[in-house]
Structure formats: C-alpha cells, structure tokens
C-alpha cells in the first residue's frame, strides 16, 4: 500500500510539474467544448434568428406573388431581399447573385401566375358544375401549370437545402392552395343564388391536420436536444480519450530516462507502478469530466447557450464517466507500451483517437453513417460511451440503461491491459 501511495504521489508530482501536459489535459478540452458548441449553436442560431438570405423576383405582381412575398417577409426562416446591389431583382441578376453565393436561395414567381391559377380554377369549377369527368385530371394539370422557380447556391450543403427548400415548397404550396380555394369559392359564389351562404375565407380558419413534435424521453424534466446536449458529452469523451497522449508519453519518458530500468530491478511488481499511473489518470479523467460538465452547466449559459441538463441519474453519470475514464486510461497504457518513442506514441495516440472518435459518432452522428460504417461504429469505445451519455442526457435514462455500455468500456480497459501485459512479457523474453 505504501508503495502504491508513493507511486501515486510521484505521478501527481510529475503531472503538476508538466505545465504543457496540464493545459492539454484540462484547458484544451474546455476550449474545445466552448468553440465547438458555440460554433454549432451560432450556426443554427444564425439560420434561425437571422434567417437564410433569399432573393425574391416577383414577376407576377398579383395575389400569388404578393402573398408569397408577404409570407416570406414575415417568415423567421429567411431574410427577404427583392433587390440586388440596389437594383430591383430580375431573373438574370438573381441567378448570377445566387451563383456567386450572395444568396442561398432565389425564388422566381413567373409573370401571370395568379391569372393562370384563376383561369384554371374557373375552368375547373365550370367543368365540375357541368359534371364533366375530366375535372380531377384538370386539377393535376393545374398544379403543374404555374411554375415557380427555386434557385439554389451550389455550395450549400444538400442536407441543409433539403430542409430549407421543403419548408419553402410547403409554404408556397399553401399560398397557391389558398388562392385556388379563394378563386374556387368566388366561382361557386357566382353560381349560388344565395350569396350570403357562400364560403368565404373558410380555408384560413380551417387547419385539417395539426402536427405536434415531442421528444421520446423518459425524463420528467424537459430535455431539449440542442447543441449543448449533443456537444458536451461528445467532446468530453473525446478529450478524456486524449489522455492517452500524456499518459503514453509519461510511460515512454520513464523508459527513455532509464527509470524503468531501475524500477524493474526493484522488489516492486511492474503492475503496481502501472496501477499508480492508472489511479492518477483515472482521477484526472474524472476531474476533466466534472470540469466539462461545469462548462456545460455554468459557463456556456454565460454565452447565451442553453445549460446542460444532466437527466435523472447522477449515479448513472458517475458509473459511465468512471468506465470511460478506465477505458481511456487503459488505451493510454497500451499506446505507451506498444510505441517505441514519445514521438511515435503522440502520432499513434492522436491519430487513433481521431479515427475512433470519427467512427464513434463524435464528429458525425452514427445514425447518418452508411450501414457498413454504422456496424464498425458499434465497435468504437467512444461510441459506447457516447451512446451511454445520450441515454442519460437526452433520453432520460437510468443506471440500468447504461450498464451494458459501462460493462463494454470496462471490458475494453481489461483488454488493453492484457495486450500491454503480453507485449511487455514478450519484450522481456529477449
């Protein structure tokens, strides 16, 4: 026990004296969380608050154009522009400006669009009243007869554009339908003797289908998925695994500075010396974790971001954080054992963690990965940890929900220790 305490004390002293190492361990991850969360949140905020820059060319100058323009002007999704560099927007200017990236989307309402709708609806009503069979067919043709052009900046990401353009399509379609309905009502009113009973603007009042979005969380608290809830656990895990670099560096320093030579001749098992390192670095990981949570709960809200909601299970968080710390520390011991030099360990450690984090869904969520990558992702310890934290932070899970993830992380720790043991044994049987 005295030997273990002495080893722990020595590791703490070495760590405290290594100012660069300390900044890598504590400061860099906090900065990383700040930057990544602020960037992602502000990107969403910019789109949500400031809106997507849209240029609008209204060649219709009638109901359809006016309604869409009014709608876009009042829509939070976009910032409305109907002029480009001080000149009224034309099709050519809009195409050029969108192509140059000045606007993300351009919308062109063709000349006579409203008139075309009215004319088509009038014909439709007349045919319906006369009982002609071609009425339904005519309705389909009508929807194609007015062509609204949506121009898109080719640089914009496809996934983003899909959500933007589908919202726009939905909105334009609603306006079109409203005009059609209004025209339809007017036409019917013409043929109904009692005009008092004719339907007027009833479309506006009616909303046939309503949508309600809820998050399928077990939590009694309202956990809203946002950049903080996603980023804080993801980058915390990433930073915890980056402990492999200072830890492997410390193992290799001991080898290179000759301390291991002396230590191996002493009546102290090598495992005890490694255990001393593990204890200290697991503690470091847990401190890192606590600091990172404090960033999410205290510091990020100071920058106008939502506070991190921890969910229902503090015990679950502790168990998972501890298992992640062991997995990260075991990985560091393995890298330090397998690498021959500090330089090798730094490259091996950082690249492998980047790879494991990419596979683990830290950078891109694993659910958007192709199936093959998703299957590989399920083998990354960072993914086990991330999934566990998502269960706690987003789905309101409890201890029982994360036990399997914690078990897998501990199994990973024991596997890395066993590999290190085998490699050391092989090296000593020279």
């Amino acid at each position: 026990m005295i030997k273990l305490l002495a080893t722990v004390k020595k590791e703490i002293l070495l760590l405290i004296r290594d100012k660069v190492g300390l900044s890598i361990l504590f400061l860099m991850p906090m900065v990383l969380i700040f930057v990544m969360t602020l960037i992602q949140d502000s990107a969403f905020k910019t789109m949500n608050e400031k809106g997507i820059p849209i240029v609008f060319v209204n060649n219709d100058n009638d109901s359809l154009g006016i309604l869409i323009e009014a709608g876009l002007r009042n829509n939070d999704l976009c910032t409305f522009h109907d002029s480009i560099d001080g000149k009224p927007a034309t099709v050519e200017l809009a195409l050029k400006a969108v192509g140059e990236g000045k606007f993300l989307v351009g919308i062109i309402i063709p000349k006579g669009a409203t008139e075309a709708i009215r004319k088509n609806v009038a014909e439709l009503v007349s045919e319906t009243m006369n009982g002609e069979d071609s009425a339904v067919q005519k309705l389909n043709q009508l929807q194609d007869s007015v062509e609204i052009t949506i121009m898109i900046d080719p640089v914009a990401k496809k996934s983003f554009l899909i959500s933007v353009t589908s919202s726009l399509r939905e909105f334009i379609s609603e306006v079109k339908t409203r005009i059609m309905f209004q025209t339809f009502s007017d036409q019917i009113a013409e043929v109904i003797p009692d005009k008092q009973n004719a339907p007027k603007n009833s479309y506006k009042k009616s909303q046939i289908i309503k949508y309600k979005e809820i998050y399928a969380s077990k939590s009694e608290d309202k956990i809203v998925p946002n950049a903080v809830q996603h980023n804080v656990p993801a980058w915390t895990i990433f930073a915890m695994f980056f402990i492999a670099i200072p830890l492997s560096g410390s193992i290799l320093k001991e080898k290179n500075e000759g301390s291991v030579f002396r230590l191996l001749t002493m009546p102290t098992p090598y495992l005890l010396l490694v255990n001393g390192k593990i204890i200290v670095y697991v503690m470091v990981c847990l401190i890192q974790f606590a600091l990172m949570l404090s960033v999410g709960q205290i510091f990020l809200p100071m920058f106008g971001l939502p506070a991190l909601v921890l969910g229902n299970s503090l015990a679950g968080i502790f168990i998972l954080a501890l298992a992640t710390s062991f997995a990260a520390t075991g990985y560091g011991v393995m890298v330090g054992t397998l690498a021959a030099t500090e330089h090798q360990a730094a490259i091996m450690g950082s690249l492998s963690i980047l790879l494991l984090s990419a596979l683990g869904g830290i950078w891109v969520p694993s659910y958007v990965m192709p199936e093959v990558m998703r299957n590989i992702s399920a083998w990354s310890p960072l993914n086990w940890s991330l999934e566990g934290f998502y269960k706690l932070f987003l789905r309101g899970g409890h201890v029982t929900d994360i036990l399997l993830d914690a078990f897998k992380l501990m199994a990973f720790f024991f596997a890395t220790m066993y590999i290190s043991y085998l490699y050391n044994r092989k090296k000593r049987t020279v």
Partner: protein
Amino acid sequence: MNDPVIIEIQNLTKTFKGATEPAVDGISFSINRNEIFGLLGPNGAGKTTTISILCGLFPPTSGRVLIDGKDLHTELSSIKNMIGIVPQDIALYPTLSARENLAFYGSMYGLHGKDLKDKIENWLQKLGLIDAAKRQVSTYSGGMKRRVNLIAGVLHDPKILFLDEPTVGVDVQSRNVIIDHLKEINALGTTIIYTSHHMEEAEHFCTRVSIIDHGKILIQGTPSELISNNAGSINLENVFLNLTNRKLRD
C-alpha cells in the same frame, strides 16, 4: 558462519533472439562477500548483459546464478530486496527534486516514515546535496545528478551493489566524492560489482577484476596479480589492451 561466496555464476549463457553469437558465452565465476569486483571489457564484451541477468532484468538462455545462496531463477523477488543498482544512465525523474526522487525510490524498496526521511537527509548531507535537495534534478550539473543517481541505488543499504560506469562524465571532484563513499559503503559490508572503461579507476578501486570479451572471461585476479602476470604491462590498461587488442570496437 556465512558462506564467503555471495554470487556464484555457473556456465551462464545468453543468446538474444535473432543473434548468431551469444552475448555471454558459458561464463563461470564467483564473487566473495565485501569484494569490489570489477567486470571490465570493451564495448559489446557482455558486461551489461551479465549485470542485467544478475539484476533479474531478463533470464539467461542457460546456466545458473546463486545470490547469497538463493537461486536467481526461483527466488528473484527476495534477491531483489538485497541488491541495488546504479545504472550508467541517470535514472531519475528530471522534474522531481532530489528529495522527491529519493523518497520515491526508497519507498519502492519498502522504506518509509522517519527511517526513509533520515536516510535521505543523511545521504544528501554526505554527498553535498543538501542545499540543492529541493531543486528539480533537471537544474543539476552532471556531477550532482551522478551523486543523486548513486544515492538512489544505496538508500536501502543493499547487500550487493551493481555499478555500471558510476563516474562517467563527471568532474574530478565529484568522482572522488563518489569513489570515497563507495569505499565507505563497501567497508560497511556491501559487496560491489563494478563495470567501467576507466582502467586507472578500476585498478585503484577494485579488489579483484575480471576482463571479459566476446562473452568469455579472458583473465581474472587482483589488479596487481594481472599486471605482474602480464609481461610488459605496467598498469591495468596495458593488460586490458594486450588481451582485448587495440582494434576499435562498435
């Protein structure tokens, strides 16, 4: 009464994996209690391999080693308690102070509390390091580091002390202090096994030497015996060069 022999080596051979020649080739010799035994030889002669086996760093390919009557193969952990090593490289943590380094290494030998503290202070005082004891080792001169390196190997009063080039790269003053204290340790009952390229130092320091080359022992005896038995030799360096020839070694 104790057996006068403290280390007995019988047909010790070590062939490293992939090597065509053995690094140590069937050597046998014994070292008596309280001797200062010099293991001398050019680079690649097999000195460090022999000492590494005796310290239990790796096992021999064949042969037997008895240390204080205990078999190295079967009783390594109890043997480790009685040996100390001062490696050629400075095996210290540069960012720890001398005191912190010594406290850690002393603890690894099972020392603790007042006993450990007193031993550290006593040695720091003896080797003139007490004023610098709080400073990080990285700020020390080469001679100061060598002295701390020595203390780390002797703090637990080992029965047997292995010294691998203990005075390499230090000034004359530090060398004298180190040699004087090694003699003092020896006088208190510690057997010393010493390797060096410094023949003059070995000649005056060792009670008996063995010259080794290509993994075999070439000659063994007291320095004066070796000099007188080798015609034309006036010192140990002459004997060494005559036996190992003057060709450069890698």
